[in-house]
């Protein structure tokens, strides 16, 4: 097993001059391929910012972020986009489906971007796995929150990502739907052998992952990971 994600001395500062705000400082950790990890912490602790840095959505002000042996700091926007399409899957709290695309099309987009063949069948299979094959032609507004998140799961796994980032995946769902979505998430993750990084403030959900990193005030307070 190799290291898929490594953060060294990572810091994030917003603003400039006198109005500088340090959101993250001195973050160091690494994640092995296939592992599952939760980043937990209170609101405003810097969890989401950290997720953004890990996934190449934002750039670190200090330190280096290495994903799949590639230092993200050195990449331009186009190269980052290619990395995201190739290695990363996303799940967001508010689902973030494209409103003008059907469920099926939403799942197909990452594959279309890769120029792959037979994507329709693969996408339909994924929708079937999340129990939505019957609703493949529905638009996001025609789906419930739980259904939207399940489409989001299908989309996240569609490009066979090496690493999956999930930001409060159950934050907008009721308890019952949350349970179903979480179950599905872990099942799909296990099946695909994907690395999972979960950002949450729900300790119960965090407990389902192999490791937990606690963040407070922009710094790592505790790192409970099973190494190796």
């Amino acid at each position: 097993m190799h290291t898929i994600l490594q953060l060294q001395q990572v810091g994030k500062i917003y603003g400039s001059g006198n109005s500088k705000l340090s959101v993250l400082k001195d973050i160091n950790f690494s994640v092995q391929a296939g592992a599952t990890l939760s980043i937990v912490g209170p609101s405003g602790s810097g969890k989401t910012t950290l997720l953004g840095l890990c996934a190449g959505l934002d750039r670190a002000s200090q330190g280096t972020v290495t994903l799949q042996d590639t230092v993200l700091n050195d990449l331009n926007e186009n190269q980052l986009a290619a990395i995201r399409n190739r290695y990363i899957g996303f799940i967001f709290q508010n689902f973030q489906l494209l409103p003008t695309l059907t469920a099926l099309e939403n799942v197909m987009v990452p594959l279309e971007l890769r120029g792959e063949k037979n994507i329709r069948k693969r996408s339909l299979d994924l929708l079937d796995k999340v129990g939505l094959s019957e609703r493949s032609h529905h638009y996001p507004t025609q789906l419930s929150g739980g259904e939207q998140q399940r489409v989001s799961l299908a989309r996240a796994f569609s490009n066979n990502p090496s690493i999956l980032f999930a930001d409060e995946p159950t934050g907008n769902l009721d308890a019952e739907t949350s349970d179903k979505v979480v179950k599905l998430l872990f099942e799909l993750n296990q099946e695909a052998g994907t690395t999972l990084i979960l950002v949450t403030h729900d300790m119960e959900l965090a407990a389902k992952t192999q490791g937990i990193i606690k963040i407070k005030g922009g710094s790592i307070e505790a790192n409970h990971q099973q190494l190796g």
Partner: protein
Amino acid sequence: MNDTPKLKWLFKMAWRDSRRNRTRLLLFISSIVLGIAALVAIYSLGESLTTNIDDQAAQLLGADLALSTNKEPSGDALTLIDSIGQNRSEEISFASMVYFTKTGGNRLAQIKALKGEYPYYGSLETIPLQAGHEFRNQRQALVEQSLMLQYQAQVGDSIQVGAVTFAIAGILEKAPGQNGITSTVAPAVYIPMQFLEQTGLMQKGSRIVYRYFYRLDNPQQAENLSSSLKERFELADLDYKTIAIQKEDTGRSFRDLTRFLGLVGFVALLLGCIGVASSIQIYIREKIASIAILRCLGVRPNEAFMIYLIQIIGIGLLGSWLGAVLGTFIQQVLPVVIKDFLPFDLIVAISWSSIIQGILIGTFISILFAMPPLLAIRNISPLNVLRNDLNQLTSWKDSTLWLIYTITLLFVYLFSFYQMQNARTALFFTLGVLLSFGLLYGIALLLMRVLKRFFPSSWGYLPRQGLANLFRPNNQTAILIVAIGLATSLIATLFLTQDILMQRIQLSTSDDQPNIVLFDIQSHQKDGVIEIAQRNKLAVQQIVPIVNMRLEEVNGHGVAYYRADSTTSKSSRIFGREYRVTFRDSLTSSETIMEGKWIGSYHASSGLIPISIEKGFAERGNMSLGDTLTFNVQGTLMQTQIASLRDVNWAEVQTNFLVVFPEGVLEEAPQFHVLMTHVPSPTVSANFQQEILLSYPNISMIDLALVIKILNELFNKIGFVIQFMAGFSILTGVLVLISSVMVSKYQRIQESVLLRTIGASQFQIFSITAMEYFFLGALASLTGIVLSLAGSWALARFSFDAPFNPALWPVAILALLVTLATVLIGVLNSREILTSSPLAILRKET
């Protein structure tokens, strides 16, 4: 993915992304539809005009070759005229009074005495048809339709021209070169040449034009003749015109018209484009989330940009195509709009080149104006999926953005250059457009700030909320004020300018100012005319002698010298014309000496005759104090010297002259007189005119009441064309308004839902919406009126030299109408939000 499949995917995504926005996108682009329609219509019209002029140039001239001069041909000129051929017609034309014996009406008309078979191409179109030919052999006249209508005359009635009474043989509907404007200003009356002598109108002073029309074996012969005889024509003071020259002249004047109309259409297009840019900016803001998701999934910044660029190209093409189709239909209407300016029948045809031009311009300009908001897409970070950050959208440091702004300005400049073919005018137009839009925008912002600052806080919640809505983020308040303001400003300026001019003339006719001018009074008629005036209790305010003369030499050199010498600053154009000169011992109230010294009398021993010339005339002819001028006064050469340069206020109603002689020189020269008086009422005016006409048929009269009437008619005709074109800007403003209402619909729904949730009634929400549009309409119309008042003031002050007393009531009514229209359009387009249940709307919209 390599480039081709990726491009295919981008098109697919652009199509998919547009799914739920196509109506909105169409609405955005509808703003440019009218601008393109206007341009296509004008371009098509231009092409139709060129084709029609090419086809009908011979009918416009009526002959293969036409010669004209304002001096009775003799000697060389006559030999030349005779040498060209005998298959010719002659026309002698001049202004004179005509008198309708049945109704007793009289007015100044253009008398055309005709001999021969002219026109050789086309015909004098008359009712009855045969009158155009038959009148030539009898004591009959053809009278232009407008005159017949004005004096309720009928075929068979009599019309007196000078000392001869003619039977009206027919109503003249059309003659070569005549159009609606010429017939309004100087309606024509054709009489046979053989009766001209008897009319007694060919006297000294009459401004007579002699024309000779030739029928040659073929038009090419006319071209050959004119090029070989060019020098001799010039020496004999004969102007010549061939069909090719006629084609060129008519084409040029209509090119000017279509260029001007094209620019008015372009303003509508620019206005629409700003509307599009504004709408697209909001559209892209709403798309940030989708773009950020795409970026998360691996779409590159330029690919995201391309998705929306493809959409804009698509709707730009569609909008331009719709505009081109609409323009082709509008083109069918344009001949009706400009019919008064047309001296020929205009047959319109579909112009494919204009359609293609319109589609290309429309697509290009919509892309150009949508580009600044589109470029912002490249700055949208995928991080927006986690948190919104709107501030990143605009980056003033983006060099591509500045490149786009430069290209936009360059495009406006190049387009106007293409329209006007003059670099300087195009630059002024571009700067003018920038300034007008900038001023409107500036005034809009200022008024908004003032309203916000001084809005009475004691007012109720509804007006306060209505006002606050104007400042809602993403509300296109400023652009709407510019669009509606521009339209209001166009209408108001048109109205105010007309009003200033009419006031200026009416002011001249008020009190005891002269309001009737009699000219062509022969010396022996002077006392008789004064007696008639006194009998009618009219004070003779001015009686001025006028002597016709020609300029032979300046500083000892004649026209040939100045024509040959390209290094001289003197213009040879000052030689060709006939000068009407007066003599007196003092200046009038409209004259001021600017340079030199006024000398009012002359003695034979004093050397050169000291004359005074008008300053502008001196500048145009490059003449200065001390220059010697030799005038030919009916065969006698007179050596004069410029002793003074005068500034003349031409706006004052009195006889003004370019050249004034001192007393003691021209007293014995052949002369005629002009008399000015004030008639207190139309009845006195009619009696006076009739008495003069019966006693002295050669005397012509200009009644300023008639001039005012003619000017009003002219303004209405010109105004109609401008208003028609301004209509495109106005409708564009309406479309920008509708699209703006639609763009902000989602926000309005959320507000409406919120307000209803906390207990607002339907009426209250309606009132807030109506208030918002009331404030918007009021601000916009006020902005437009402020700008038009400023513009009209500048015109009155600097162009017309007239006092500025704008008629505020009509302007206020216009502002009210614009405001009400804005409220109506706003409320009508918001009715869905007002009438549906909050939940139903939310389900539908989200």
